[in-house]
């Protein structure tokens, strides 16, 4: 039997194992090494977990038994620290040496650190893994500043409000989720979250994090050392505002975890470079997930990773002729119970030489929709609240369907676009 070692036990890895053990149950003797001390869990569900909407057991997608049932060896709580490519061997922090015929890197990403003074103070935390969540759940009532108005920051902030903390979210742009939402939807989201007790400071750049320090005897220590022992006291903004804080959650993006690969001499740019078969520079080594860079693109949401897992599994199973090609798909998020879907060129500004096109907007209590239309084709959308028609719009967007016949009731969704005869209904005898 060939030996497959998988580095990382996150969402991409688990999906790959599912597929591979089904396609070729007896091809490999598989070892999985996970840095985190847990079996496989659904990272996406960390937000509801932090918000109190679920529990650890429910979000555990792959309990230890699942690995045992498939004869997979699972080593947790110990990162791989080195890859000896020539020997085809990896080494863990605990000292395991594992031989491989094929190696899969699925190391995910790490939270980006704020590039400001004070990030290493106690009380500056991230929101990435189960450990972070446990820590956040153990806080006693506190003032929390969340930095970053992307989905991670919002979910953390909202969950912390639910836990009873006094939370202020600081965002550098004019509206929230500016990657996924237009201004109207962003403002709406802000209003809805404000109504739930979250406070916002918008268009605010974080200047530094202020600390407090226990009384010290000598003072011969360097300032960085000093910080290591200090605690968060406040966040300073570029405009001079000072936001007192007991904790700071930084949610300003992610960075692919590619150090291990880089140190093994694999080609790494922003992430680990892979080709369309998810192979790295070394034909024995594959990589999938947030740690990779594929055709100059890195990843931050789960949907494309599943596709990578599926393609990669077929190659590892030696059935491989499939290629991974990034397909733009809609982003689906749920912030504090509010469903959001967006896709494409929803502002009409992504294509340099094209006109922005036309905007249709729908405003309802609790819901908002925007479609961007160019040459009678949907080129982008934002859905807020009621997303029941997301699949319908996404299909029109992907298939570049000519919507001129549907245009009038298009925004109202599929249930109002089915009757092509409608036009005649009022077309329109004065005898109504």
């Amino acid at each position, binding site marked *: 039997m060939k030996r497959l070692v998988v580095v990382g036990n996150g*969402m991409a890895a688990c*999906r790959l194992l*599912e*597929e591979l053990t*089904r396609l070729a149950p007896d091809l490999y003797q598989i070892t999985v090494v996970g840095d985190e001390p847990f079996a496989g869990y*659904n990272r*996406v*569900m960390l937000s*509801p977990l932090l918000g109190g909407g679920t529990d650890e057991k*429910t979000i555990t*997608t792959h309990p230890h038994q699942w690995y045992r049932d498939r004869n997979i060896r699972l080593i947790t709580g110990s990162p791989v620290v080195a890859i000896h490519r020539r020997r085809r061997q990896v080494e863990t922090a605990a000292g395991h040496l594992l031989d491989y015929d094929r190696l899969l890197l699925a190391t995910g990403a790490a939270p980006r650190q704020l590039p400001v003074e004070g990030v290493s103070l106690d009380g500056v935390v991230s929101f990435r893994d189960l450990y972070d969540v446990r820590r956040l759940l153990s806080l006693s009532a506190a003032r929390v500043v969340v930095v970053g108005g992307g989905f991670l920051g919002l979910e953390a902030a909202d969950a912390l409000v639910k836990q009873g903390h006094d939370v202020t979210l600081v965002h550098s742009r004019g509206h929230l989720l500016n990657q996924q939402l237009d201004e109207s939807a962003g403002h709406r989201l802000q209003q809805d979250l404000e109504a739930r007790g979250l406070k916002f400071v918008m268009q605010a750049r974080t200047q530094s994090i202020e600390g407090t320090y226990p009384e010290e005897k000598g003072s011969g220590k360097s300032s960085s050392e000093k910080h290591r022992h200090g605690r968060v006291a406040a966040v300073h903004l570029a405009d001079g505002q000072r936001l007192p804080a007991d904790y700071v959650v930084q949610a300003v993006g992610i960075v692919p975890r590619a150090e291990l690969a880089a140190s093994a001499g694999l080609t790494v740019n922003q992430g680990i470079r892979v080709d369309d078969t998810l192979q790295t520079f070394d034909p024995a080594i594959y990589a999938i997930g947030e740690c990779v860079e594929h055709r100059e693109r890195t990843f931050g949401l*789960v*949907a494309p990773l*599943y596709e990578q897992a599926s393609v990669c599994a077929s190659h590892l199973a030696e059935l491989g002729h499939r290629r991974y090609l990034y397909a733009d798909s809609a982003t*689906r998020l*749920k912030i504090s119970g509010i*469903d959001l879907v967006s896709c494409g060129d929803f502002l009409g500004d992504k294509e340099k030489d094209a006109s922005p096109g*036309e*905007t*249709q*907007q*729908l*405003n*309802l*209590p609790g*819901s908002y929709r925007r479609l961007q*239309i160019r040459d009678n084709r949907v080129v982008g959308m934002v859905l807020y609240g*009621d*997303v*029941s*028609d*997301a*699949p319908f719009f996404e299909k029109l967007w992907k298939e570049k369907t000519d919507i001129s016949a549907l*245009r*009038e*009731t298009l*925004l*109202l*969704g599929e*249930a*109002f676009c*089915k*009757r092509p005869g*409608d*036009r005649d*209904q*009022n*077309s*329109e*005898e*004065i*005898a*109504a």
Partner: protein
Amino acid sequence: MSAEANTPKAVATNAGTAICTTCPYCGVGCGIRTDGVTLKGDTQHPANAGRLCVKGSSVLETLGDQDRLLNPEVDGEVVSWDQALDEVAGRFRRIVEEHGPDAVAFYVSGQLLTEDYYVANKLMKGYIGSANIDTNSRLCMSSAVVAHKRAFGEDVVPGCYEDLELADLVILTGSNTAWAHPIVYQRIVAAKQARPDMKVVVIDPRRTATCDLADLHLAIRPGQDVPLFNGLLTWLDDNKALDQAYIDAHTEGFQATLETARSQGNDWDTLAAKMGVSKVDLTTFYHWFATCERTVTVFSQGVNQARNGSDQGNAIINAHLATGRVGKPGASPFSITGQPNAMGGREVGGLANQLAVHLDIDNPAHHAAVADFWQAPALATKNGLTAVELFEAVSSGEVKAVWIMATNPVDSLPEADKVRQALMACDTVVVSDCVASGDTLACADIRLPALGWGEKSGMVTNSERCVSRQRPFVPAPGQAKADWWIITEVAQRMGFADAFPYQHERDIFAEYSALTAVAGQFGKRLDLTGAADLSADQYAQWQPQQWPLKGDPRCFADGQFSTPSGRARFVTCENPPVRQIGDAFPIILNSGRIRDQWHTMTRTGRAGRLFAHLSEPFAALHPKDIERYRLQEGGFVRLTSRVGDALVRVTRDTGQRPGTAFMPMHWTDQFSRRARVDALVPARLDPHSGQPAFKHTPVNVSDWQPRWHGWLFTAASPPAVEYWARVPVDAFLQAGQVQRYRLAGDADLTEQQLHDWLPQAAQWLALNDPATGHYRRAALDKDGRLLAWLAIGETLPVCDVDWLADCFADDADIQHMAILAGQPADAGPDLGPVICSCFQVRQKTIEGVVEEGADSVEAIGKGCQAGTNCGSCIPELRGLLETCTS
């Protein structure tokens, strides 16, 4: 037919105890039984024997306090009745003292009851001393009155409805009976079904709904009735079909009339061509007339509303006299009236050229007798101003005070815009009405709240001289009072208390009945003397009866007429001069009723269902003209005449003669922006009757292309846009009844404007597509109920207006998407609950994928995407897998 009143509007005072009353609409005068909650035709009533048309059966829906005038108002202030009546009496008295009796006028209506009419007539002619009382009946019936008086010596309809069933040939001329007199039409339909060899001829330039029944439709050119019937006289002579014995024994003036008729020759090819029909059709009609002893010729507005309306009526009567067919079973000329009590008004004499009870002002003997009966100090000695003249006199300032009762001359008179200006400039305009808003009310200085149908009590006379009761069954709203009471009070305050002692409508009816004895002294047929002594109880119990109350439903069967000689008169009818159609106004506009509306819609306009038939004002044109004038079917047309203009929808009607157009007469400024047909009609009158020629207006037509179209539902008034047409919705909000407006305009709109058209609201639904100018708005209150709805687009926004109307109900299920769509969702089959919320995948879809072989969560994901995003539904997917596969 029966109708359930499904709105809370009908307030039953005596629910459970049904009363019999008479329909408030057309001159058929159908009997109705109602307890205020349910309503059906009165099976005992001779006019309808239980049948009702849609207008009659929906009348309960038009009751209620919405938009009712509830208090007297003087110069915009609510005042007590005492103050209002003093004010009216005072102003009229002062003007009479300063300027003489002819400086005041009454303009009344066929909607008044006989008692109201009688008191108004007595006050004006007998006590104020002017004959300036005219009525809207002038607009529909006065030419027939002249024709009757000239031929029979009295304004008497000789026949009765039963004649229509007995006839072998029914000729319907100038009458869209199917829509204007539906129950008469139904009686003819039933008769023809029973006796299929009975023939029906329709004479009308338009192919109307009535033509469905016709064996022959003679689509003669407008204004050709006299040549047609003159030709008939010639044909009867040529074919030896005259009843010479009858002519000799009972008529006079035949020779001269025949000679005039013959002067147009008997070359039927030429005549047919002149009239615009085929020779075969023309001679078929003549042949049928000659051979059918039992022939009834029904005529109404199409004959009356012409410059030679009186002559057209006489041309018809001439043919009947020449064949001895007057007042005989199944054989008679038959003028049918438009209004429920036009006949009552004619009987009491409520027109400017009548004195009272079929007597004449300029006949000294009549004058003396009536003056004596009334003990009238100042009985008018000369004819007064007829409707059109009356408003011209208002305009010139000759008439300084006018009291308008139960009618809407700003919409119904020709050159209606001038009428409005005249009223606006007039010293004192008093309007008694039962509604609170109307184009005429808007001009009033003093407004008096009158009782409406269902509240008022009195007598009406229908087209076959049948006198029946209108009985009250709902309480008077607010301060509203009977018209006769209002007039009586004013008369008393003007100093005529002795002559106006009436306590009850019966007192008036008894006095009027007694007065008919005076008519009898002069050989008139009008005779109600049998009712002169009726008790309060008898009045209350009154059963429908035809006058002369002698048992015979017909008049003049014996060949004895009301002329001094006792002979009927032939009236020489000259062919009308051929009118040149100018290039400027190449289309001849005709006007008339549509099936489900009545007059200016003050009543029918309250029942949404009466708009289901035709919901907007329109002009019907022949397809050739639509093409020729580059109009668009369903589009808009601007009509202009010498005196006015209108903006309405275009309908295509192959039944319309090329070169002619038809517009309904009902739409007022209350119902559409600019669709008052009478604003187009110049005041050209029949010289004998003063009746305007409504049916023959030269107009120009041009296409109007709006930049945007829209629908608006609101309880507020319409926005100031180029075109709107209103339809009431059966729903009531705090702000009033919901109205549906069809809108169109050619000015650019801003979002702010749209906002301004809508009421304050707690919640909004909005759809914007600025690139196509498509906007939708729905306003909701804090409980989520619909308050207003608006949609605007370059083409008319798609919606289901009836469904939307239902959404204004208190308990309507308000689904936001559907509300904005303006139609219920077409949800497709029920696929169960959403399991995967990321991809909105429903349970049945997932089960379907499993049944097709998916055996894992991943396979389900491949099949239908479920679980491939956040994965939070994966536990549920597992559960479904287990239940499906076990």
